[in-house]
C-alpha cells in the first residue's frame, strides 16, 4: 500500500474522483492527451505482481479462515476487492423498510478488482428500449455512437469471444475463446434440447497477448484475486498504473471526496476531500472535474456539492439526480449431475469465469415481462477451500453404491470421506442476470435525518422496490433453469422459489450493476448529464461511471462504462482545445 498526499495542493488540468473502470479509463486518455491529472481514490494502492500484495495461487491453508469471506471481503479472504456491502464507519440508510445493498470497493481499480470480467457490449436495442416496449426512456445516443469506442476498448484491454452475428449482442475484436469445461458441455446439451443458444463466454482475459506489456492467462480461475501477470482486466493494472508511468498523473490514495467546489459562476474549481490518514480536509484545484466514484457515490458527491450557485447540489434541479437507480435482476439455481460422480481428475480451473454463456434469446412481445436476461453457468472441479465437503446431510443420498443402493444422508467415517471424493465436481448451476425497468420511484438521496459517515460526510438513503416486471422475469428464469438442468441430466437441488420469496429474486444491489443515478438526456429537466456525460448545469464537470446510464440492458455494465468514459474523455480534450471549458 502506498500513500501520497500534498500539504500544498497543486493545480491540475483534471481531477478524477475514483480509479475504477470509468476513472481509470479517463486517467489514461486524458493523460495521454498531455493533460495533468490527479486521481483521487478513497482506498489504497496495490500491485498484484508484488508478492506482499499477491493472493493469487495461495492455497486455502495460508488463510486461517481457509478463504472464507469476511465483512470487508465478502467474496472470500483472497478476493482482492476491499470494502463490501457493509463498511465500518461508512453507513447508508433505507426508506420505508425497502432494501438496497450498496457494494463498494475502496482501492485503486475500485470494483474492477471484484467483477466477473464478463465484457458484453450493449446492443442497438439496449439504447432504445422505450421505443420498443414503451417503458422507461431512450438513451440520447445509440449503438453507432459507441461502437468505435467499444472497438477501441476491445483492442486496448482484450476480451475473448466468438463472432455470432446476433443483432443485439454485437460482435467485437475477440481473442480466441477457451474450450468448454465438462459441466459446460453437459449444460450445452441441456440448452440445445431446450432450443436455447449457448455460446463462448465474452470475458476480458488475455488468452493471447494484445501487446508486450501484459502477460497471458495461465488458467488459474482466480481473476478476482488480481493477476500477477496482468492477464485480466482491472483498472489498476491496465489503466491507472500505465497512465502513471507514462503521463502526468498523481495518485491521491485514502482520500475521501466530500464535494466538488464551485465558483460564483457555478463552475467547478476542484474538490475537497478528507484524508483517511490524518482525518484532515484537503483541497485540490483543477480546470475540469471528472467523477468516476460509482453511480451512487458520484450522485452523493453531486448532492453534497451545495453552494450559493448550486443550492440543491450540482444537478439537483434536474429532478433526476439520484433517481432511476436500477440494478440487474438476479436469481440462481443449482443441481447435481450423476454423470459426473466418480469423475476423472485433471486440472479444470480454466479462466476466472464461465467458458460458455447464454445471451438473451427470446422476444418479450410473447412474454409477460418486459426485458431479458442472460445466463451464467458454473460448476466443475474448483479449488476445495472453506465449505469443501459440505452439504452431505442432504446431498449424499444421490450417490449409489455398486449394487445401486443409495448412500444415507449425513454419516461419518471412511464412507463419508469416499462419498465426498465421489461427489466432488458433480454440482453445477446457473445464474440469470437481467434487465430491470428504471423507475423514478427508485432512488438514493442524502439521508434527511442527518446521518454522516466517519469523515463527517452526509450519507445516502435508499428507496427501492422491484415491480411485477422483475418478479415475472425471475419466475421465468427459474422455469428456464429447471429445464436446462433437467435436460442436462441433473437432479435439482433445493426447491423452486415462489411468490413468498419473490421468486428467488436477489435484493437490489446484490448483483452490483447499479446504474442510472446521474442519467444522460437532452434536457436539463429529467436528466443530469448531456449525451457527452457533461453536467447540464456545470459544464466543466463530467461523470464517467455508470451513473450516466439511461437503462441497464441485460449486460454487465463495465464494457459500456469503459467505452463511455473514453468517449467523454475525447470530448473533454476537444472542449479544452476549443476553450469551451
Amino acid at each position, binding site marked *: 500500500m502506498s500513500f501520497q498526499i500534498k500539504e500544498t495542493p497543486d493545480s491540475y488540468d483534471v481531477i478524477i474522483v475514483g480509479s475504477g473502470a470509468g476513472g481509470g479509463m479517463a486517467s489514461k486518455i486524458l493523460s495521454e492527451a498531455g493533460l495533468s491529472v490527479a486521481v483521487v481514490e478513497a482506498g489504497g494502492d496495490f500491485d498484484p505482481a508484488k508478492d506482499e500484495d499477491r493472493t493469487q495461487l495461495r492455497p486455502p491453508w495460508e488463510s*486461517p479462515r481457509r478463504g472464507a469471506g469476511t465483512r470487508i471481503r465478502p467474496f472470500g479472504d483472497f478476493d482482492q476487492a476491499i470494502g463490501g456491502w457493509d463498511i465500518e464507519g461508512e453507513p447508508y440508510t433505507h426508506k420505508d423498510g425497502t432494501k438496497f445493498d450498496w457494494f463498494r470497493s475502496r482501492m485503486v481499480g475500485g470494483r474492477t478488482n471484484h467483477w466477473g470480467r464478463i465484457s458484453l457490449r450493449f446492443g442497438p436495442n439496449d439504447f432504445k428500449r422505450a421505443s420498443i416496449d414503451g417503458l422507461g426512456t431512450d438513451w440520447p445516443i445509440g449503438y453507432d455512437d459507441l461502437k468505435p469506442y467499444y472497438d477501441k476498448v476491445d483492442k486496448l484491454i482484450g476480451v475473448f469471444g466468438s463472432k455470432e452475428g446476433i443483432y443485439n449482442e454485437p460482435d467485437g475484436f475477440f481473442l480466441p475463446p477457451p474450450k468448454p469445461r465438462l459441466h459446460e458441455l453437459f449444460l450445452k446439451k441441456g440448452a440445445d434440447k431446450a432450443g436455447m443458444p449457448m455460446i463462448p463466454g465474452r470475458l476480458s482475459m488475455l488468452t493471447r497477448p494484445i501487446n508486450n506489456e501484459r502477460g497471458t492467462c495461465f488458467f488459474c480461475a482466480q481473476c478476482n484475486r488480481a493477476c500477477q501477470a496482468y492477464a485480466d482486466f482491472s483498472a489498476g493494472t491496465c489503466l491507472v498504473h500505465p497512465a502513471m508511468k507514462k503521463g502526468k498523473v498523481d495518485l491521491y490514495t485514502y482520500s475521501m471526496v466530500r464535494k466538488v467546489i464551485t465558483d460564483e459562476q457555478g463552475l467547478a474549481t476542484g474538490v475537497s476531500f478528507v484524508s483517511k490518514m490524518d482525518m484532515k480536509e484537503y483541497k485540490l484545484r483543477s480546470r475540469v472535474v471528472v467523477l468516476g466514484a460509482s453511480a451512487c457515490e458520484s450522485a452523493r458527491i453531486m448532492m453534497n456539492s451545495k453552494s450559493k450557485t448550486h443550492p440543491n447540489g450540482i444537478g439537483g434541479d434536474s429532478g433526476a439526480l439520484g433517481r432511476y437507480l436500477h440494478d440487474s435482476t438476479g436469481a440462481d439455481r443449482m443441481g447435481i449431475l450423476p454423470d459426473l460422480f466418480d469423475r476423472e481428475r485433471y486440472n479444470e480451473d480454466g479462466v476466472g469465469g464461465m467458458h460458455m454463456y447464454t445471451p438473451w434469446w427470446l422476444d418479450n412481445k410473447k412474454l409477460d415481462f418486459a426485458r431479458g436476461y442472460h445466463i451464467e453457468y458454473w460448476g466443475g472441479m474448483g479449488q476445495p477451500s472453506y465449505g469443501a465437503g459440505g452439504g452431505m446431510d442432504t446431498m449424499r443420498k444421490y450417490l449409489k453404491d455398486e449394487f445401486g443402493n443409495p448412500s444415507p444422508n449425513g454419516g461419518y467415517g471412511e464412507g463419508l*470421506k469416499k462419498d465426498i471424493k465421489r461427489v466432488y465436481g458433480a454440482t453445477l448451476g446457473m445464474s440469470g442476470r437481467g434487465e430491470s425497468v428504471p423507475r423514478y420511484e427508485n432512488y438514493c438521496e442524502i439521508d434527511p435525518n442527518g446521518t454522516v459517515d466517519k469523515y463527517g460526510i452526509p450519507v445516502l438513503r435508499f428507496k427501492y422496490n422491484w415491480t411485477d416486471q422483475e418478479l415475472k422475469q425471475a419466475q421465468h428464469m427459474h422455469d428456464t433453469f429447471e429445464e436446462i438442468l433437467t435436460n442436462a441430466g441433473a437432479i435439482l437441488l433445493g426447491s423452486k422459489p415462489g411468490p413468498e420469496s419473490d421468486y428467488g429474486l436477489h435484493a437490489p444491489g446484490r448483483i452490483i450493476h447499479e446504474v442510472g443515478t446521474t442519467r444522460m438526456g437532452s434536457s436539463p429537466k429529467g436528466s443530469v448529464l448531456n449525451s457527452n456525460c457533461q453536467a447540464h448545469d456545470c459544464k466543466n464537470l463530467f461523470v464517467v461511471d455508470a451513473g450516466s446510464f439511461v437503462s441497464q440492458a441485460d449486460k454487465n455494465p463495465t464494457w459500456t462504462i469503459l467505452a463511455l468514459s473514453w468517449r467523454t474523455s475525447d470530448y473533454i480534450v476537444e472542449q479544452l482545445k476549443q476553450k469551451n471549458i
Partner: protein
Amino acid sequence: MNRRENLKLLFTGSIGAGLLMTGCEPEQTTLAHEPVLASGGTPGNRTEEEKIRDAELLAEKFFTEAERKKLDTLGDIICPADSESPAASELKVTDFIDFMMVDQPGNQTRMRGGLMWLDFEADEKFGKLFNDLSQDQVMQIVDLVAWPDKATPEYEGAVKWFNLVRNMVCSGYFSTQAGWKYIDYRGNTPNVWDGVPQEVLDKHGLSNPEKYKELYLKPEDRANVVQWDDEGNIIG
C-alpha cells in the same frame, strides 16, 4: 503497552508471537493453546485493520479444553485416518473450527449448545461426561444424530447441530494439503487449458462444439501478439 500497540508491534517483526500470546498483564499469561494456524493471519494486500483483526482472532480461543476434546473425538469419527489420508486431529481441524467460532461468532451459541448436549445425553444414557465415555458409548450417541433421515424427532435439534459439526470438520479437512491430495484436486497451478481430455469426452459421449473448432485457443498461439482485420477476424 496496550493490546493494540502490542499487536501493531507484532507486524514490525521485532517481537515474536510469544508476547502476543502471553500479553503484558499477568492475567493474560494463561492462554491455553499455542497458535497452530498461520501466525500472522492471511497474507496479501491486507489493510491495517485486517492485520490487527486476524492477530486478535488468532490470539483468542473460544473452546474450553473439554470442548476441544469433544471436537477432537467427533472430528476423528467424521474424518478418520485411512490408508490414503490422515485423521482430522492430525490436520488440526479443531483449531480451525475454534478460529471460525471467533471469526464468525454467529455459530458460537449453536456450537457450544450442541457440545453441552453431548454431556447431557452421556449422563442420561451412561451417567458420565461425554469425554469419559468408551468408544462404543460415544458411537451410540453419535449414531443418534449423525443420520438426518433416520434420526427420531426428539433429536431433530441435535441432528442440525451435528450437521454443522460435520460441515465444519469437512471444511477444515479438505481445505488442507492432505485434503487436496485425498480429493485429488489438480489445479491452483499455472497451466494451459486445452479443453476436456479426449478420453473423458469419449467416456461421456460429448465433444466440443464443431462450430468453434477453428476458433478455440490453440496453445501454440499463446506467445504471439494477436492481430485482427477490420472485421475483427484474427489474421495473426
